[in-house]
């Protein structure tokens, strides 16, 4: 397939892509399978497969390992793909913001806009056979795992069309086939869980790595250290990814952590600090990390230097602990979508008007998905009791008083 060929010419290390029998689901394939990428064929200009060299200006900082190269190759096809997906992610988060403010989404909603390069760059270097687990700021990670916007938004709205049937909400989205283990509300839990995933991969001799993501705030949870020790002791194929957006809720990293930096925290685990606003830097770093792990060298840690435009959650304006100037500044200088936009126009692959039209399409896709989600019904009342235990366990669960009870059957 021309797309796969483009991927190989992008300068990615030649990784074994054949999973345990059958077609490896990689991102470009799934994209083509989706309806909205079909529209991309119609509207976007000629997609060139010619390799385009890209510099990564912000240096990788390495701790106890060699850094990856400061340059990579991309292609027109990849650039348009990045542009599209990041725009969909951005629009989805903004649409969620609006739905929340209108009172349609309730509960907690942690938005990812600004951090798109991490989700997108990571998936460009991984396959969906590499299990991924992250924390609560996960809508875009889930999308990057091959979900549809409807599955995300319907889940936020608490509807049946949502990925967890409306039972999980913003922080609990999962994808069984694409090995996405969520979605965790309690901080610090992805590292130990991911370590367990990695052990299974190693034991079953799979050519895959586990990726466990967490934030700068949760880096001080004890269980993170426990997990890393186990991973290093047993040389597990796990990539720990710290999404350092510099604030744990309203607490800056300087006020929470004694040591500045996360990539070099653990003496016995190598780490790399990555410019998380550059999708190319992320892609290169994750590919490098995957190669490290698959060579049997044990765990590795990637610190993504990234930034979120929104506050921590919808109840946080995000401007009491950082200045608006800072937020605007990052948006102006380091926005991940702008980086791709500039490269596309610089290479003459599309004009600004054409990209604007493309962005508008993405917006239309998201709006259509929102409509579809809103049309989905709320879960049935019986769902309240389902899936507490495995089906047919026969456990009796009681209702509000001991007169009403359900047997776990479904």
């Amino acid at each position, binding site marked *: 397939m021309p797309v796969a060929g483009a991927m190989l010419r992008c300068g990615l290390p030649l990784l074994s892509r054949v999973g345990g029998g059958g077609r490896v689901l990689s991102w470009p394939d799934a994209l083509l399978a989706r309806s909205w990428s079909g529209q991309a064929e119609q509207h976007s200009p000629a997609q060139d497969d010619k390799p385009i060299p890209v510099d990564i200006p912000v240096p990788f900082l390495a701790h106890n390992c060699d850094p990856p190269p400061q340059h990579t190759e991309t292609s027109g096809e990849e650039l348009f793909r990045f542009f599209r997906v990041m725009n969909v992610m951005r629009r989805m988060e903004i649409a969620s913001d609006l739905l929340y403010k209108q009172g349609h989404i309730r509960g907690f909603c942690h938005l990812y806009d600004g951090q798109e390069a991490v989700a997108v760059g990571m998936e460009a270097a991984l396959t969906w056979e590499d299990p991924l687990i992250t924390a609560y700021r996960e809508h875009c990670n889930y999308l990057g795992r091959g979900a549809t916007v409807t599955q995300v938004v319907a889940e936020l709205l*608490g509807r049946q069309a949502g990925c967890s049937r409306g*039972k999980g*909400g913003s*922080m609990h989205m999962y994808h069984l086939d694409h090995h996405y283990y969520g979605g965790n509300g309690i901080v610090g839990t992805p590292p130990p869980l991911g370590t367990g995933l990695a052990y299974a991969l190693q034991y079953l001799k799979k050519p895959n790595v586990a990726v466990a993501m967490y934030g700068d*705030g949760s880096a*001080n949870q004890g269980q993170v250290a426990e997990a890393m020790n186990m991973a290093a002791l047993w040389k597990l194929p796990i990539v720990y990814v710290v999404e350092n957006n510099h604030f744990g*809720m*309203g607490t800056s990293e300087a006020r929470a952590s004694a040591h500045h930096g996360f990539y070099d925290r653990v003496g016995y685990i190598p780490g790399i600090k990555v410019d998380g606003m550059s999708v190319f830097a992320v892609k290169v770093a994750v590919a490098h990390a995957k190669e490290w792990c698959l060579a049997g060298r044990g765990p590795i840690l990637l610190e993504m230097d990234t930034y979120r435009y929104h506050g921590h959650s919808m109840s946080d304006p995000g401007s009491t602990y950082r200045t608006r100037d800072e937020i605007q500044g990052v948006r102006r200088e380091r926005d991940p979508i702008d980086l791709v936009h500039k490269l596309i126009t610089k290479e003459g692959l599309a004009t600004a008007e054409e990209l604007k039209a493309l962005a508008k399409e993405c917006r239309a896709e998201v709006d259509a998905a929102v409509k579809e989600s809103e049309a989905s019904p709320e*879960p049935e009342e019986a769902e*309240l009791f389902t899936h507490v235990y495995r089906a047919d366990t026969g456990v009796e669960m009681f209702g509000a008083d001991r007169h009403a009870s359900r047997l776990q059957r479904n």
Partner: protein
Amino acid sequence: MQRGTAALLRCARFLGELQPRRISSLETARCFSGAAMQAQPSAPEGYDGTAELKRMNLFTAVNDALHIALDTDPNSYIFGEDVSFGGVFRCTTGLAERFGRHRVFNTPLCEQGIIGFGIGLAAMGSRAIAEIQFADYIFPAFDQIVNEAAKCRYRSGNQFDCGGLTIRTPYGAVGHGGHYHSQSPEAFFTHVPGLKVVVPRSPSKAKGLLLASIRDRNPTVFFEPKGLYRMAVEEVPIGDYETELGRAEVLREGSDVTVVGWGAQMLVLERACDAVEKEGVSCELIDLQTLLPWDVDTVAASVSKTGRLVISHEAPITSGFGAEIAAKIAERSFLKLEAPVARVCGLDTPFPLVFEPFYLPTESKVADAIMHTVSF
């Protein structure tokens, strides 16, 4: 009731002479009506009508208690996530400014570390007031609380203790909290000898019970109903006062059925009692206030009078604290009971997101249970 009398009563009980609890007229006048958000003046123990009252909501009352606690004991500290700027629920407003950042300070995001640290601080004779931002996050600290805090005095033969430790944490449903911002884990802690577990229902109770908890020489877990932080408004006495721990309060006297609860659920129970009163059922409503140790005598005395008991809490029904009350009353008041003890609680599922209204023990579920119990 004066404190001296209460102490005498306790001695009398211990010696096996059961005394019926005398209910003062002051207490019967007290009525929690958070529904209207305009409570009648509610006074604490020993209120003689002279102390000035100030309109406060629950977080302001907690804040007031913390100001007084730090003011009266220079060796006391408040710490937790985000407490310095005032806290996510505004309970710690103004404390860092007034007492300094060495006495009121933020910790990193590490519950097990926070509580372990607090135990150590308390073991040095300090009053360590730790905040766990949501009760749902208390579980990493569960080992420290159960294995260290609760057993410190016992295992050292009374040489050491961490009685100065108080753990404050918001609990309970808030309308949209979902799995991890709504839990009521109080039952887990009532299972641990060595701890005290306290749950206030209103601003004035929160202030009095919190001051009592802080000054009590045993480690205490203090659950604050987060749904009421803003919603409950009351006239709270300014100044220093404590509400006695281990004592339940009868909010209204009745003759047909005893209804027991604590915390935010009292509001629901009050409404249910009002609803069944229209059907001619007279309810005696009791707020336990302290779950560990809980006031068995007050509840047993009430059941002796009414012969029926309905218990209600938000936490899931199986092994919720209502189970302990039911078992104990069945033991103590078996011959007085005219109907099985009823419990109206949360369901045996994780706290749901969209299903919250179905999950909670609502007014109609409680009223239903009361009617069933009285017509048994």
